[in-house]
């Protein structure tokens, strides 16, 4: 390991980059060793860690999942009962989804109550709100994928809520549904939104979130 690192470091001068990422000093008010209540500053990092776990488990779950009404439920049953560690990974992904939403909300509360959203960090708050919406969209689209009764009816209700948007509601709902009835197209587009569109959006907004965080640093203590 050390020699491989040395080889790369000699050629690419990695040490300053790595130091910038890993040796970043944490101010006392956000340091758990110095301030007892500082754990609230961990919520964002924990949310990010859970999102990474979701991405990893999600990519692997796609090995067996099939987004068609004929196969979806059978493929999820197959994952749970006939693959090694499938029940573990599927459970991790399901519980992780709730955990991600919870941690993002806690992170949002921390930012709110420490006043961290104020000047000069307003833009990062705005990006954070988009990240919250993206995480919720992940939850909404992912909930349909097992294609069981709960999934089907939860999505029916969710899309009927969308239909209540003034003026364009009906159009919006059928655009999301892929027609006027839930079916093949609904499942497929929810799957594609879940595994392609949202991850791309998430990556872009997370990059912006972290870039601004590093430029501006952690907000001052109260």
């Amino acid at each position: 390991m050390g020699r491989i690192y040395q080889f790369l470091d000699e050629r690419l001068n990695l040490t300053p980059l790595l130091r910038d990422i890993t040796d970043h000093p944490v101010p006392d008010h956000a340091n758990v060793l110095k301030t007892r209540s500082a754990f609230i500053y961990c919520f964002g990092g924990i949310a990010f860690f859970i999102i990474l776990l979701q991405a990893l488990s999600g990519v692997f779950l796609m090995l067996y999942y099939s987004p068609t009404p004929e196969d979806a439920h059978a493929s999820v049953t197959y994952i749970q009962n006939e693959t090694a560690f499938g029940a573990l990974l599927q459970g991790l992904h399901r519980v992780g989804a709730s955990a991600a939403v919870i941690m993002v909300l806690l992170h949002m509360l921390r930012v709110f109550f420490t006043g961290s959203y104020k000047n000069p960090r307003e833009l990062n708050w705005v990006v954070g709100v988009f990240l919250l919406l993206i995480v919720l969209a992940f939850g909404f689209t992912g909930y349909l994928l097992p294609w069981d009764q709960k999934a089907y009816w939860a999505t029916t209700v969710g899309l009927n809520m969308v239909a209540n948007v003034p003026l364009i509601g009906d159009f919006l709902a059928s655009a999301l549904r892929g027609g006027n009835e839930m079916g093949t197209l609904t499942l497929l587009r929810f799957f594609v939104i879940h595994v392609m569109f949202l991850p791309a959006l998430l990556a872009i907004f997370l990059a912006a979130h972290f870039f601004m965080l590093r430029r501006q640093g952690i907000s001052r203590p109260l």
Partner: protein
Amino acid sequence: MDLPEENQSLPRRRFFINGIKALAALFGLGLGIPLAGFFISPALKKDKHDWIEIADSSLLKDGEPSRINYSYARKDGWKTAQTPRTAFVVKQASGEFAAFSNRCTHLGCGVNWDSALKQFKCPCHGGVFDAQGRVVEGPPPKALTRLALKVEANKIFVMEA
């Protein structure tokens, strides 16, 4: 370690770096083993094989392999797939029956029986096998696969290899 630090804080720094590395390794293994196991689990599964009835033994000609198309139900992921197969069944001089898979042992093309030359011929790369399935010429590395076979009440059963 070129950061200006007190002497005693260096071991502590080392300790934390090693601790973080150990934790990362633990997480890596804790995730890596399930993920790898999940990925390779179909390869660890053994297919279950049953006897498949393919022909009536009284209809076979002595010494002349008969081409028999049959299909069997195979577990295909979460589905069951009706899988077509072809075998050549021959009643040998000894009175015993033998069944050969039609798949050439070179690259898996379907072989044909040439009744004039009494040979199996592969259309793809010129592999030739004799009536016992042994390689006569061409690229095949080994004889045609013999399927397990049993005869019960004049019915011929084979089992997929």
